[in-house]
Protein backbone atom coordinates (compact mmCIF):
# COMPACT_ATOMS: atom_id res chain seq x y z
CA UNK A 1 0.00 0.00 0.00
CA UNK A 2 2.41 2.70 -1.16
CA UNK A 3 1.35 6.33 -0.91
CA UNK A 4 0.42 7.12 -4.47
CA UNK A 5 -1.87 4.32 -5.55
CA UNK A 6 -4.16 4.21 -2.57
CA UNK A 7 -7.80 5.15 -2.99
CA UNK A 8 -8.91 7.45 -0.25
CA UNK A 9 -12.16 5.99 0.95
CA UNK A 10 -12.20 8.29 3.98
CA UNK A 11 -13.36 11.11 1.76
CA UNK A 12 -16.73 9.34 1.48
CA UNK A 13 -17.32 9.78 5.20
CA UNK A 14 -18.80 13.00 6.63
CA UNK A 15 -16.08 15.64 6.96
CA UNK A 16 -17.03 16.60 10.52
CA UNK A 17 -14.83 14.21 12.54
CA UNK A 18 -17.50 13.67 15.17
CA UNK A 19 -19.94 12.48 12.50
CA UNK A 20 -17.14 10.57 10.80
CA UNK A 21 -16.48 8.49 13.93
CA UNK A 22 -20.20 7.96 14.42
CA UNK A 23 -20.69 6.75 10.83
CA UNK A 24 -17.78 4.35 11.07
CA UNK A 25 -18.88 3.02 14.45
CA UNK A 26 -22.43 2.46 13.18
CA UNK A 27 -21.23 0.63 10.07
CA UNK A 28 -18.97 -1.64 12.13
CA UNK A 29 -21.56 -2.34 14.84
CA UNK A 30 -24.15 -3.33 12.23
CA UNK A 31 -21.75 -5.89 10.75
CA UNK A 32 -21.02 -7.28 14.22
CA UNK A 33 -17.38 -6.20 14.03
CA UNK A 34 -17.24 -4.05 17.15
CA UNK A 35 -19.14 -4.08 20.42
CA UNK A 36 -20.15 -0.67 21.84
CA UNK A 37 -19.74 -2.07 25.37
CA UNK A 38 -16.10 -2.94 24.58
CA UNK A 39 -15.55 0.62 23.36
CA UNK A 40 -16.94 1.94 26.66
CA UNK A 41 -14.61 -0.40 28.52
CA UNK A 42 -11.54 0.80 26.57
CA UNK A 43 -12.47 4.44 27.23
CA UNK A 44 -13.06 3.76 30.93
CA UNK A 45 -9.65 2.06 31.18
CA UNK A 46 -7.72 5.04 29.83
CA UNK A 47 -9.94 7.66 31.44
CA UNK A 48 -10.03 6.21 34.92
CA UNK A 49 -7.62 3.34 35.42
CA UNK A 50 -4.35 3.93 33.57
CA UNK A 51 -2.64 7.29 33.91
CA UNK A 52 0.43 9.16 35.18
CA UNK A 53 -0.22 7.98 38.74
CA UNK A 54 1.34 4.68 37.68
CA UNK A 55 4.53 6.35 36.52
CA UNK A 56 4.65 8.60 39.59
CA UNK A 57 4.45 5.56 41.88
CA UNK A 58 7.49 4.03 40.20
CA UNK A 59 9.44 7.30 40.07
CA UNK A 60 8.76 8.04 43.76
CA UNK A 61 10.11 4.62 44.72
CA UNK A 62 13.21 5.13 42.57
CA UNK A 63 13.91 8.53 44.12
CA UNK A 64 13.85 7.03 47.61
CA UNK A 65 15.53 3.67 47.05
CA UNK A 66 18.91 3.49 45.31
CA UNK A 67 18.71 -0.22 44.58
CA UNK A 68 15.24 0.12 43.12
CA UNK A 69 16.51 2.97 40.96
CA UNK A 70 19.45 0.89 39.74
CA UNK A 71 17.14 -1.96 38.76
CA UNK A 72 14.68 0.42 37.13
CA UNK A 73 17.36 2.03 34.98
CA UNK A 74 18.86 -1.37 34.16
CA UNK A 75 15.89 -3.60 33.37
CA UNK A 76 12.58 -1.89 34.09
CA UNK A 77 10.38 -4.62 32.62
CA UNK A 78 10.69 -6.94 35.62
CA UNK A 79 9.75 -4.13 38.01
CA UNK A 80 6.86 -3.00 35.85
CA UNK A 81 5.55 -6.54 35.61
CA UNK A 82 5.63 -6.83 39.40
CA UNK A 83 3.54 -3.67 39.70
CA UNK A 84 1.12 -4.74 36.97
CA UNK A 85 2.19 -1.88 34.71
CA UNK A 86 2.59 -3.86 31.51
CA UNK A 87 0.49 -3.56 28.42
CA UNK A 88 -0.24 -1.96 25.14
CA UNK A 89 2.24 0.71 24.06
CA UNK A 90 4.50 -0.28 26.94
CA UNK A 91 5.88 -3.60 25.78
CA UNK A 92 9.47 -2.33 25.87
CA UNK A 93 10.17 0.49 28.29
CA UNK A 94 13.40 2.32 29.06
CA UNK A 95 13.77 4.81 31.89
CA UNK A 96 16.32 7.61 31.43
CA UNK A 97 17.67 9.55 34.38
CA UNK A 98 17.99 13.31 34.64
CA UNK A 99 21.17 14.50 36.34
CA UNK A 100 22.70 17.93 36.89
CA UNK A 101 24.69 17.24 33.70
CA UNK A 102 21.95 15.89 31.40
CA UNK A 103 18.26 16.71 31.05
CA UNK A 104 16.20 14.23 29.03
CA UNK A 105 13.09 15.00 26.99
CA UNK A 106 10.90 12.46 25.16
CA UNK A 107 9.07 12.98 21.86
CA UNK A 108 7.78 10.95 18.95
CA UNK A 109 8.26 12.90 15.73
CA UNK A 110 6.73 10.17 13.55
CA UNK A 111 3.45 9.79 15.45
CA UNK A 112 2.89 9.93 19.21
CA UNK A 113 4.58 6.90 20.79
CA UNK A 114 4.33 7.11 24.55
CA UNK A 115 4.51 4.72 27.53
CA UNK A 116 0.75 4.20 27.97
CA UNK A 117 0.86 1.77 30.94
CA UNK A 118 2.89 4.31 32.94
CA UNK A 119 1.54 7.66 31.76
CA UNK A 120 -1.82 6.89 30.12
CA UNK A 121 -2.92 8.57 26.90
CA UNK A 122 -0.55 11.37 25.84
CA UNK A 123 -1.69 14.97 26.34
CA UNK A 124 -2.77 17.05 23.35
CA UNK A 125 0.48 19.05 23.28
CA UNK A 126 2.56 15.85 23.03
CA UNK A 127 0.62 14.90 19.90
CA UNK A 128 0.76 18.42 18.44
CA UNK A 129 2.74 19.37 15.34
CA UNK A 130 4.27 22.24 17.33
CA UNK A 131 5.92 19.97 19.88
CA UNK A 132 6.85 17.19 17.48
CA UNK A 133 8.45 19.43 14.87
CA UNK A 134 10.27 21.80 17.20
CA UNK A 135 11.53 19.92 20.24
CA UNK A 136 14.18 18.08 18.24
CA UNK A 137 15.55 21.33 16.81
CA UNK A 138 15.08 23.82 19.64
CA UNK A 139 14.45 21.91 22.86
CA UNK A 140 15.54 24.76 25.14
CA UNK A 141 13.15 27.22 23.53
CA UNK A 142 10.37 24.62 23.85
CA UNK A 143 11.21 24.08 27.52
CA UNK A 144 10.84 27.82 28.09
CA UNK A 145 7.30 27.57 26.75
CA UNK A 146 6.67 25.04 29.53
CA UNK A 147 8.22 27.45 32.03
CA UNK A 148 11.41 25.43 32.43
CA UNK A 149 14.85 27.04 32.36
CA UNK A 150 17.81 24.71 32.71
CA UNK A 151 21.16 25.57 34.28
CA UNK A 152 23.64 26.71 31.61
CA UNK A 153 25.88 23.68 31.92
CA UNK A 154 23.13 21.10 31.68
CA UNK A 155 23.11 19.33 28.33
CA UNK A 156 19.81 18.43 26.73
CA UNK A 157 19.22 14.95 25.36
CA UNK A 158 16.06 14.48 23.30
CA UNK A 159 14.78 10.92 22.81
CA UNK A 160 12.75 10.48 19.62
CA UNK A 161 10.73 7.26 20.06
CA UNK A 162 11.02 5.91 16.53
CA UNK A 163 10.72 2.21 17.39
CA UNK A 164 8.64 0.26 19.90
CA UNK A 165 10.87 1.29 22.81
CA UNK A 166 8.95 3.70 25.03
CA UNK A 167 10.88 6.18 27.16
CA UNK A 168 10.09 7.67 30.55
CA UNK A 169 12.19 10.28 32.33
CA UNK A 170 13.32 9.85 35.93
CA UNK A 171 13.39 13.48 37.09
CA UNK A 172 15.71 15.04 39.67
CA UNK A 173 14.34 15.38 43.20
CA UNK A 174 14.83 19.01 44.23
CA UNK A 175 16.40 19.49 47.67
CA UNK A 176 13.29 21.12 49.08
CA UNK A 177 11.37 17.84 48.74
CA UNK A 178 13.95 15.67 50.46
CA UNK A 179 12.30 14.06 53.47
CA UNK A 180 9.01 13.51 51.60
CA UNK A 181 7.71 9.95 51.82
CA UNK A 182 6.68 7.85 48.81
CA UNK A 183 3.08 8.95 48.85
CA UNK A 184 3.89 12.65 49.23
CA UNK A 185 6.42 12.38 46.41
CA UNK A 186 4.06 10.62 44.04
CA UNK A 187 1.65 13.55 44.51
CA UNK A 188 4.15 16.10 43.22
CA UNK A 189 5.66 14.11 40.35
CA UNK A 190 3.77 15.41 37.34
CA UNK A 191 3.19 13.69 34.03
CA UNK A 192 5.20 16.40 32.27
CA UNK A 193 8.16 15.82 34.63
CA UNK A 194 8.20 12.20 33.44
CA UNK A 195 8.21 13.35 29.78
CA UNK A 196 10.94 15.88 30.53
CA UNK A 197 9.03 19.10 29.95
CA UNK A 198 8.67 19.95 33.64
CA UNK A 199 10.66 19.62 36.83
CA UNK A 200 9.37 18.02 40.01
CA UNK A 201 7.18 20.47 41.85
CA UNK A 202 6.02 22.31 38.75
CA UNK A 203 2.31 22.17 38.12
CA UNK A 204 0.59 20.15 35.36
Amino acid at each position, binding site marked *: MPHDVEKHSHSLLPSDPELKVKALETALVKRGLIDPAALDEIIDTYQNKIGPKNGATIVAKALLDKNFKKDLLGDPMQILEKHGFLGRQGEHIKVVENTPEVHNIVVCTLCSCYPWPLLG*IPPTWYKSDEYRSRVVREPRKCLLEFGVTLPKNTKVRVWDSTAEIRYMVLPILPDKYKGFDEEQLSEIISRDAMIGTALIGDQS
Partner: protein
Amino acid sequence: MGGRYGDGAIQPASITDKTFKETWHARALAVTLATGSLRQWNLDMSRHARECLPPKDYCAFSYYDKWISALANLLVAKGVISPDEFLDPVQKMHPLSSRKLLAADVAGVLSKGAPTSRSVEGSPKFLLGQSVKTRRADNKFISGGHTRLPKYVERCEGKIEICHGAHVFPDTHAHGLGEQPEHLYTVSFLTSELWESPENPSDTLCVDIWESYMEPVNDP
Protein backbone atom coordinates in the same frame (compact mmCIF):
# COMPACT_ATOMS: atom_id res chain seq x y z
CA MET B 1 7.97 16.56 10.66
CA GLY B 2 10.94 16.60 13.03
CA GLY B 3 12.81 19.88 12.61
CA ARG B 4 10.16 21.51 10.42
CA TYR B 5 9.84 25.28 10.67
CA GLY B 6 6.74 27.41 11.12
CA ASP B 7 4.67 25.49 13.62
CA GLY B 8 4.41 28.15 16.32
CA ALA B 9 4.26 27.94 20.09
CA ILE B 10 3.38 24.83 22.08
CA GLN B 11 0.26 25.03 24.21
CA PRO B 12 1.11 23.22 27.44
CA ALA B 13 -1.77 21.48 29.19
CA SER B 14 -3.75 23.02 31.97
CA ILE B 15 -4.32 21.02 35.11
CA THR B 16 -8.03 20.78 34.32
CA ASP B 17 -7.53 19.16 30.89
CA LYS B 18 -9.34 15.89 30.47
CA THR B 19 -7.78 12.71 29.06
CA PHE B 20 -10.02 13.10 26.02
CA LYS B 21 -10.81 16.68 25.11
CA GLU B 22 -13.92 15.67 23.14
CA THR B 23 -16.15 12.65 23.50
CA TRP B 24 -15.48 11.67 19.89
CA HIS B 25 -11.71 11.57 20.55
CA ALA B 26 -12.32 8.75 23.03
CA ARG B 27 -14.60 7.01 20.56
CA ALA B 28 -12.03 7.32 17.76
CA LEU B 29 -9.34 5.75 19.94
CA ALA B 30 -11.64 2.97 21.12
CA VAL B 31 -12.91 2.08 17.62
CA THR B 32 -9.32 1.99 16.37
CA LEU B 33 -8.14 -0.28 19.19
CA ALA B 34 -11.18 -2.54 18.99
CA THR B 35 -10.87 -3.15 15.25
CA GLY B 36 -7.28 -4.33 15.83
CA SER B 37 -8.80 -7.51 17.24
CA LEU B 38 -10.12 -8.41 13.79
CA ARG B 39 -6.45 -9.16 12.98
CA GLN B 40 -6.61 -7.81 9.44
CA TRP B 41 -3.54 -5.60 9.87
CA ASN B 42 -0.64 -5.02 12.23
CA LEU B 43 0.50 -1.90 14.05
CA ASP B 44 2.95 -0.93 11.32
CA MET B 45 0.23 -1.18 8.69
CA SER B 46 -2.05 1.09 10.69
CA ARG B 47 0.76 3.61 11.20
CA HIS B 48 1.46 3.56 7.49
CA ALA B 49 -2.24 4.05 6.72
CA ARG B 50 -2.08 7.34 8.65
CA GLU B 51 1.01 8.41 6.72
CA CYS B 52 -0.79 7.57 3.47
CA LEU B 53 -3.47 10.19 3.98
CA PRO B 54 -3.17 12.83 1.25
CA PRO B 55 -0.72 15.50 2.49
CA LYS B 56 -3.44 18.16 2.39
CA ASP B 57 -5.65 16.07 4.68
CA TYR B 58 -2.71 15.05 6.88
CA CYS B 59 -1.97 18.70 7.57
CA ALA B 60 -5.57 19.78 7.98
CA PHE B 61 -6.95 16.89 10.05
CA SER B 62 -6.75 16.91 13.81
CA TYR B 63 -4.92 14.04 15.52
CA TYR B 64 -7.84 11.67 16.05
CA ASP B 65 -9.35 12.62 12.69
CA LYS B 66 -6.19 11.17 11.14
CA TRP B 67 -6.73 7.98 13.11
CA ILE B 68 -10.32 7.51 12.10
CA SER B 69 -9.79 8.48 8.45
CA ALA B 70 -6.83 6.10 8.17
CA LEU B 71 -8.90 3.37 9.79
CA ALA B 72 -11.66 3.87 7.23
CA ASN B 73 -9.12 3.51 4.42
CA LEU B 74 -7.60 0.43 6.01
CA LEU B 75 -10.97 -1.27 6.48
CA VAL B 76 -11.69 -0.79 2.78
CA ALA B 77 -8.17 -1.61 1.56
CA LYS B 78 -8.23 -4.88 3.48
CA GLY B 79 -11.68 -5.71 2.12
CA VAL B 80 -13.36 -5.74 5.53
CA ILE B 81 -16.17 -3.43 4.54
CA SER B 82 -17.15 -1.62 1.39
CA PRO B 83 -17.04 2.18 1.23
CA ASP B 84 -20.79 2.23 0.49
CA GLU B 85 -21.38 0.98 4.02
CA PHE B 86 -19.96 4.19 5.47
CA LEU B 87 -23.04 6.09 4.41
CA ASP B 88 -25.49 3.26 4.16
CA PRO B 89 -24.72 0.72 6.91
CA VAL B 90 -25.85 -2.83 6.31
CA GLN B 91 -27.31 -5.02 9.07
CA LYS B 92 -25.60 -8.28 8.23
CA MET B 93 -23.29 -10.47 10.29
CA HIS B 94 -19.71 -10.29 9.00
CA PRO B 95 -17.58 -13.48 8.68
CA LEU B 96 -15.02 -11.80 10.98
CA SER B 97 -17.57 -11.05 13.69
CA SER B 98 -16.38 -14.06 15.70
CA ARG B 99 -13.17 -12.07 16.31
CA LYS B 100 -15.05 -9.08 17.69
CA LEU B 101 -13.47 -7.68 20.86
CA LEU B 102 -15.86 -8.23 23.75
CA ALA B 103 -16.09 -5.95 26.77
CA ALA B 104 -15.03 -8.80 29.05
CA ASP B 105 -11.79 -9.27 27.08
CA VAL B 106 -10.72 -5.62 26.96
CA ALA B 107 -8.66 -5.64 30.17
CA GLY B 108 -6.79 -8.76 29.07
CA VAL B 109 -6.05 -7.45 25.59
CA LEU B 110 -4.88 -4.03 26.80
CA SER B 111 -2.64 -5.43 29.52
CA LYS B 112 -1.10 -8.00 27.19
CA GLY B 113 0.18 -5.72 24.45
CA ALA B 114 2.20 -7.07 21.54
CA PRO B 115 5.97 -7.20 22.15
CA THR B 116 8.09 -6.70 19.03
CA SER B 117 11.32 -8.22 20.34
CA ARG B 118 12.41 -11.41 18.55
CA SER B 119 15.33 -13.75 18.83
CA VAL B 120 17.58 -13.92 15.80
CA GLU B 121 20.70 -15.82 14.93
CA GLY B 122 23.79 -13.73 14.63
CA SER B 123 25.16 -11.07 16.90
CA PRO B 124 24.66 -7.33 16.47
CA LYS B 125 26.79 -5.84 13.72
CA PHE B 126 27.56 -2.68 15.70
CA LEU B 127 29.18 -2.29 19.10
CA LEU B 128 28.45 0.22 21.83
CA GLY B 129 30.26 3.47 21.15
CA GLN B 130 30.83 2.67 17.48
CA SER B 131 30.42 5.47 14.92
CA VAL B 132 27.76 4.90 12.29
CA LYS B 133 26.19 6.75 9.39
CA THR B 134 22.53 6.52 8.44
CA ARG B 135 21.34 5.98 4.92
CA ARG B 136 18.58 7.81 3.10
CA ALA B 137 15.23 7.73 4.91
CA ASP B 138 13.35 5.72 2.29
CA ASN B 139 11.79 2.29 2.37
CA LYS B 140 14.09 -0.03 0.38
CA PHE B 141 11.40 -2.53 -0.54
CA ILE B 142 8.39 -0.43 -1.49
CA SER B 143 8.61 2.96 -3.13
CA GLY B 144 6.91 5.41 -0.79
CA GLY B 145 6.59 2.71 1.85
CA HIS B 146 6.77 2.92 5.62
CA THR B 147 10.08 3.58 7.34
CA ARG B 148 11.10 4.65 10.83
CA LEU B 149 14.21 6.58 9.97
CA PRO B 150 13.25 10.22 10.43
CA LYS B 151 14.21 12.49 7.55
CA TYR B 152 16.11 14.84 9.84
CA VAL B 153 18.68 12.17 10.75
CA GLU B 154 19.20 10.74 7.26
CA ARG B 155 22.82 10.57 6.08
CA CYS B 156 24.06 11.74 9.47
CA GLU B 157 26.82 10.39 11.66
CA GLY B 158 26.08 9.24 15.17
CA LYS B 159 27.22 6.86 17.86
CA ILE B 160 25.73 3.59 19.10
CA GLU B 161 24.39 4.16 22.63
CA ILE B 162 22.23 1.12 23.37
CA CYS B 163 21.66 -2.27 21.71
CA HIS B 164 18.04 -3.33 22.18
CA GLY B 165 18.28 -6.80 20.65
CA ALA B 166 16.33 -7.73 17.54
CA HIS B 167 12.88 -6.27 16.82
CA VAL B 168 10.33 -6.69 14.04
CA PHE B 169 11.36 -4.58 11.03
CA PRO B 170 8.59 -2.07 10.24
CA ASP B 171 9.72 -1.47 6.65
CA THR B 172 8.69 -5.00 5.69
CA HIS B 173 6.06 -5.65 8.37
CA ALA B 174 3.97 -2.65 7.26
CA HIS B 175 3.67 -4.15 3.78
CA GLY B 176 2.94 -7.79 4.45
CA LEU B 177 6.55 -8.77 3.70
CA GLY B 178 7.06 -10.49 7.03
CA GLU B 179 8.64 -9.53 10.33
CA GLN B 180 12.27 -9.85 9.16
CA PRO B 181 13.58 -8.92 12.66
CA GLU B 182 16.81 -6.95 12.85
CA HIS B 183 18.95 -5.63 15.65
CA LEU B 184 17.74 -2.28 16.92
CA TYR B 185 19.97 0.38 18.45
CA THR B 186 19.67 3.75 20.09
CA VAL B 187 21.97 6.08 18.20
CA SER B 188 22.95 9.49 19.55
CA PHE B 189 23.60 12.43 17.27
CA LEU B 190 25.19 15.70 18.26
CA THR B 191 22.83 18.52 17.35
CA SER B 192 25.70 20.12 15.48
CA GLU B 193 25.56 17.13 13.08
CA LEU B 194 21.84 17.64 12.46
CA TRP B 195 21.29 21.38 12.32
CA GLU B 196 23.21 24.20 10.70
CA SER B 197 22.56 26.50 13.68
CA PRO B 198 21.96 24.29 16.70
CA GLU B 199 20.69 25.84 19.92
CA ASN B 200 23.57 24.23 21.75
CA PRO B 201 26.08 22.15 19.76
CA SER B 202 26.73 19.76 22.64
CA ASP B 203 23.09 18.76 23.08
CA THR B 204 22.21 15.35 21.69
CA LEU B 205 19.35 13.57 20.00
CA CYS B 206 18.74 9.88 20.51
CA VAL B 207 16.88 7.95 17.83
CA ASP B 208 16.07 4.23 17.67
CA ILE B 209 17.49 2.86 14.44
CA TRP B 210 17.40 -0.58 12.80
CA GLU B 211 20.64 -2.16 11.71
CA SER B 212 20.03 -1.93 7.97
CA TYR B 213 19.44 1.83 8.21
CA MET B 214 23.14 2.33 8.98
CA GLU B 215 26.66 1.60 7.90
CA PRO B 216 29.85 1.74 9.97
CA VAL B 217 32.08 4.79 9.87
CA ASN B 218 35.79 4.42 10.30
CA ASP B 219 36.95 6.68 13.06
CA PRO B 220 39.90 8.80 11.95
